[in-house]
């Protein structure tokens, strides 16, 4: 179909898909009150100014943390969508630890503790999904999605009830001294990415994941325990998403209020994983790209572009890349 060298074809496909999808999404978005002019000028602003660049690094945290953990899960064909709920849970326990637990920890202790706590609660949620998949073969996609709604409603309950302060349904905010800047977020995110990358490419465990994902029966013949692999990736992806929730709370969210729609960082992580073909390093880069789309969407919110459209832009891009790759690989 296309006269490129075969080795270049996937790259050409991805590029065509990215451009076509992004263009389509921007043109569709022009029907909003923000208009084509608004979309175009914001697009230029996001990719040429320093302020949005720094903001992309802040928003990158939850998206990338979820995505790099999911690359491991998806390699093992454990299709969890639970990152959304795990991120929310991570942010809930962070807020609890710092503002509602009466422990009054010093920031130097509180921040690492919240990262560990958020990570482990996320891992626990992943463990539940993994356990149901391994022992009763319950479909992990639906179970994890249902849990996302459960966590969302628990969050709404906390924010409008027990944790509410003042007249509006909003919780206390984490103190200035606990908040994380872009640098700390990037360092945490990059460390997690490298950890996942090393696990996947430089360890026996990573090899086991890949073998199991490609041919579960072969893996079992060679003595790999499928239950252990699934449970491990379920917990690992839960852990990184939970840490993503901590970064969301300490990086830019700072407090909680009831929401009718989940913020979507976990779903973005899912899309990023697919876009990156489950490679943690590519996923980090793709997360940055998606984070820039989120900044674009947020900058246009005041002029009337619904924030929910951000996930649509990203979905259209991923689908467009998948189509382009399929068409160019024939």
């Amino acid at each position, binding site marked *: 179909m296309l006269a490129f060298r075969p080795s270049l074809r996937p790259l050409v496909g991805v590029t065509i898909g990215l451009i076509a999808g992004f263009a389509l999404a921007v043109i569709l978005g022009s029907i909003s009150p923000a208009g084509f002019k608004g979309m175009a000028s914001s697009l230029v602003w996001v990719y040429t100014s320093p302020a949005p660049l720094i903001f992309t690094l802040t928003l990158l945290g939850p998206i990338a943390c979820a995505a790099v953990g999911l690359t491991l899960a998806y390699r093992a064909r454990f299709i969890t969508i639970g990152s959304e709920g795990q991120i929310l849970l991570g942010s809930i326990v962070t807020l609890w630890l710092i503002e509602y637990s009466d422990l009054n920890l010093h920031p130097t202790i509180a921040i690492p503790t919240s990262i560990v706590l958020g990570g482990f609660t996320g891992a626990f949620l992943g463990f539940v999904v993994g356990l149901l998949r391994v022992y009763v073969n319950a479909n992990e996609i639906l179970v994890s999605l249902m849990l996302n709604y459960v966590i969302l409603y628990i969050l709404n*309950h906390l924010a409008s009830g027990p944790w509410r302060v003042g007249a509006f349904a909003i919780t206390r905010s984490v103190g200035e001294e606990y908040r994380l800047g872009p640098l700390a977020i990037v360092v945490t995110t990059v460390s997690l990415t490298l950890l996942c990358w090393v696990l996947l490419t430089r360890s026996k465990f990573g090899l086991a994941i890949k073998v199991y994902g490609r041919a579960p029966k072969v893996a079992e013949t060679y003595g790999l325990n499928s239950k252990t692999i699934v449970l491990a990736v379920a917990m690992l992806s839960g852990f990184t998403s939970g840490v993503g929730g901590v970064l969301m709370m300490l990086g830019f969210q700072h407090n909680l209020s009831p929401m009718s729609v989940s913020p979507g960082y976990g779903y973005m992580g899912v899309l990023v994983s697919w876009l990156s073909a489950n490679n943690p390093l590519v996923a980090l880069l793709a997360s940055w790209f998606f984070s820039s789309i989120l900044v674009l969407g947020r900058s246009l919110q005041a002029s009337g572009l619904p924030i929910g459209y951000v996930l649509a832009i990203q979905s259209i891009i991923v689908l467009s890349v998948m189509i382009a790759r399929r068409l160019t690989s024939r």
Partner: protein
Amino acid sequence: MSIAFITSIPIILAALGELVVERSGRVNLGVEGMMAFSASISVAVSTLTGSPLIGLIAGGLAGVILSTVYTLTVIGLKLDQIVVGLIISLAGLGLADLISSTGYRVGYNIPHGSTLHNTLIVITIVLPPILWLILYRTPQGVELRAVGYDEHVARERGLRVDLIRAVTVTIGGLTAGIAGAYMALVLYNGRYFSGITGGWGWLAIGSVILGYWHPIGVAVAAYTIGILLTTKPLLTSELGLPPTLVTITPYIAVIIALTLVTIISRRKPSLIPPKPL
């Protein structure tokens, strides 16, 4: 007509459509997005035309349009059905918000007790038995299920697998579309707001499993979930249960159902459902 039944109509309709898709051996996880998209479209079109009926039809067509994306990419290009389904869900939710941002948030509603509403109620009641007749007592229905049980054997026997699946996916899109339009035009009095579907599309997919891929079972399962969704005020005021606990019950019920299904199919292997998921 009981309020619980009126509330569960969108879940029943969407679940029955998804049942047809899954019986043909595919799963479309885009139900939530198709419902949201059609809810938004139905409100916009009912505003533009002044007719809730045309709004409802437009909603159905909106579902069909999104399901066509699935047909082209999953059945045509053989892309991963799980990935595409979730993408349709996420994109549909966003596109729905985009359409309503152009100013269509309040349209014309379908009043309770109107002829149109009563027609929809009757359709929902008669659809499960009719669907059972079609699936189990007509050659087309048997072919459809055969495709779901074993695609390769069905193909060997000369069945047009891709065509049958394209049809079932379109039916699934239509029912999800009408379900979404119903939510906006009936349950929310002709309004659209972000997050209007609130996971009901996922509950519909859960009902398909909870009802064990049988039209009557699926309708009963969806109705049960509808009861759980409507009795929230009653359960909280009369029994003193915390509202959050009641809100999350349908979602927990689906998780429990997912685990029970496996246990049932282990006990009775003859009841093994089509395995799209």
